[in-house]
């Protein structure tokens, strides 16, 4: 019973901390303390977290190496812009359509490709991601290679914050349920999972569809912040960027994906000033992390109160020992 009480207490604490964070940032934006440069990076951080956490569901928890995440982002971006800018419907409808369209694309691509394993799946999803980009480039209605510009800026801080919360709640709750255990069982041992009654294809497709839907959400948010979208923005390099965040954070760690998404976005912003050597420094940092933490920053563990407490008490203990 005490366990339940402390759980409720933690939940309340989380809500309070998050609400405070939301209000603080909103205050900083309205008073102009957070200038445009910081706002852009804040937006990128949130979008990248959504992308990394959703790809981590596919690559980290289900163990299916997908390299086509940017393709789903593209579908979300263009889908939402068609609804909001070209057809003039409200933004919220654009977001819903973006997620549904990306989920549907995830289903259509997932059913045939998820029979493949490892490298073959990676290549197939990479191919599908590129197909999406090329198809979009050849549709005149959405501007062809030039894309669409003049998208009104609707991705405000409250929209970002709510989107992020929905993503986290859905994916974390899914992972921590019986359905999540089935998904993790697929990663651990497909044959054993099937023998224990888990329809592995079904759960792979489920993870793929949910992951794709949130990539679509990220695409919609992106499109409605940066005024212009082009199909080439969502090429395979973008997919690799997201993959790097997931691997850096630790495959199968949601908090790891969040930390890595923040780290890489901030790093990128910081390195803008050193444009000439940007990629060299970026790559060097990644190589160093991979040498010393090959399992990613957090491995497959989650950052939890328990671990924080452990680190804290460990520090205290060592200081008292001295």
């Amino acid at each position, binding site marked *: 019973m005490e366990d339940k009480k402390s759980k409720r207490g933690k939940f309340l604490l989380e809500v309070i901390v998050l609400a405070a964070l939301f209000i603080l940032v909103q205050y900083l934006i309205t008073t102009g303390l957070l200038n445009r440069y910081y706002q852009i990076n804040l937006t990128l951080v949130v979008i990248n977290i959504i992308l990394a956490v959703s790809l981590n569901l596919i690559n980290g928890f289900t163990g299916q190496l997908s390299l086509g995440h940017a393709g789903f982002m593209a579908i979300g971006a263009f889908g939402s812009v068609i609804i909001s800018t070209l057809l003039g419907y409200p933004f919220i409808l654009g977001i819903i359509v973006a997620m549904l369209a990306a989920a549907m694309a995830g289903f259509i691509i997932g059913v045939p490709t998820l029979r493949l394993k490892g490298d073959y799946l990676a290549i197939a999803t990479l191919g599908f991601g590129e197909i999406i980009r090329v198809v979009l480039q050849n549709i005149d209605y959405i501007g062809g290679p030039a894309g669409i510009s003049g998208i009104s800026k609707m991705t405000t801080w409250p929209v970002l914050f709510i989107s992020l919360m929905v993503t986290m*709640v*859905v994916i974390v*709750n*899914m992972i921590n*349920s*019986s*359905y*999540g*255990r*089935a998904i*993790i*069982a697929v990663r*651990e*041992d497909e*044959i*054993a*999972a*099937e*023998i*224990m*009654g*888990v*329809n*592995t294809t079904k759960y792979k497709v*489920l993870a793929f569809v949910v992951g794709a839907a949130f990539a679509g959400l990220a695409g919609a948010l992106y499109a409605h912040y940066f005024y212009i979208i082009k199909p080439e923005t969502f090429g395979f390099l973008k997919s690799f960027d997201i993959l790097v965040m997931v691997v850096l954070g630790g495959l199968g760690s949601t908090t790891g994906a969040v930390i890595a998404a923040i780290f890489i976005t901030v790093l990128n912003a910081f390195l803008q000033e050193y444009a000439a050597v940007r990629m060299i420094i970026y790559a060097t940092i990644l190589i160093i992390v991979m040498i010393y933490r090959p399992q990613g920053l957090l491995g*497959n563990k989650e950052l939890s109160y328990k671990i924080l407490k452990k680190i804290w008490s460990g520090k205290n203990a060592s200081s008292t020992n001295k």
Partner: protein
Amino acid sequence: MPHLQINNLCKAFGGLSAVLNFDFYINKGELVGLIGPNGAGKTTVFNLITGVYKPDQGNIYLNGEDITGMPPYDICKKGIARTFQNIRLFNDLSVLDNVKISLHIYVPYSLATAFLRLPVFFKGEDEITQQAIKFLEIFGLDKKKDEKASNLPYGEQRRLEIARALATRPSLLILDEPAAGMNPNETKELMELINWIRSEFDLSILLIEHDMSLVMGVCERIYVLDYGQIIAEGIPEEIRNNKQVIEAYLGEEVD
């Protein structure tokens, strides 16, 4: 009607027939052994029954229902569970989660309620946890429920695998060399355990085993497989004195 009946089962890998004209039955509540030299095709038979492989020919009936060619997860729901010769636990997961995954086929809440964390989700999770702990208690693993499965000693990993299989609530349990790598004492304990769970859970059990004393001691009927074909079938006494069986295991007598 036999619990499991197999007629004329054939499976070839390339030009090699691993299982040929395999006929077999097991009655409800029976404990049947399948023995044979290395490479005789015993594990292939298990893989065919549980749907890991699709047979080239022949039929498999569970309680009279044709289950030939069904995917493993459906066969599991029909009531067949198994363990593996080379243990296949979900190594990175906790002991408790290993058993919980088996209970997924009985998941008492929908995915939507899991997203929203409705009360039915928490109630369902409590149920799943309690049931999983019950299975762990039977096998004396409840104290180690939070340990990583791969950190368990060998004998306990074997027991966890049986616990995980039982959690799917099968009517037929298939054990692939459950005593492999165990010392005589552990083997004896395991045999007592197998006998006990058979009566406790009202199971039919089919087991592959190399340890002859174990098979002879516990099985009611034995099939002997050699080069993919059955060369003998009968009660342990008959098998012990069967000339063909002795030849298959020890080689022909020299005149």
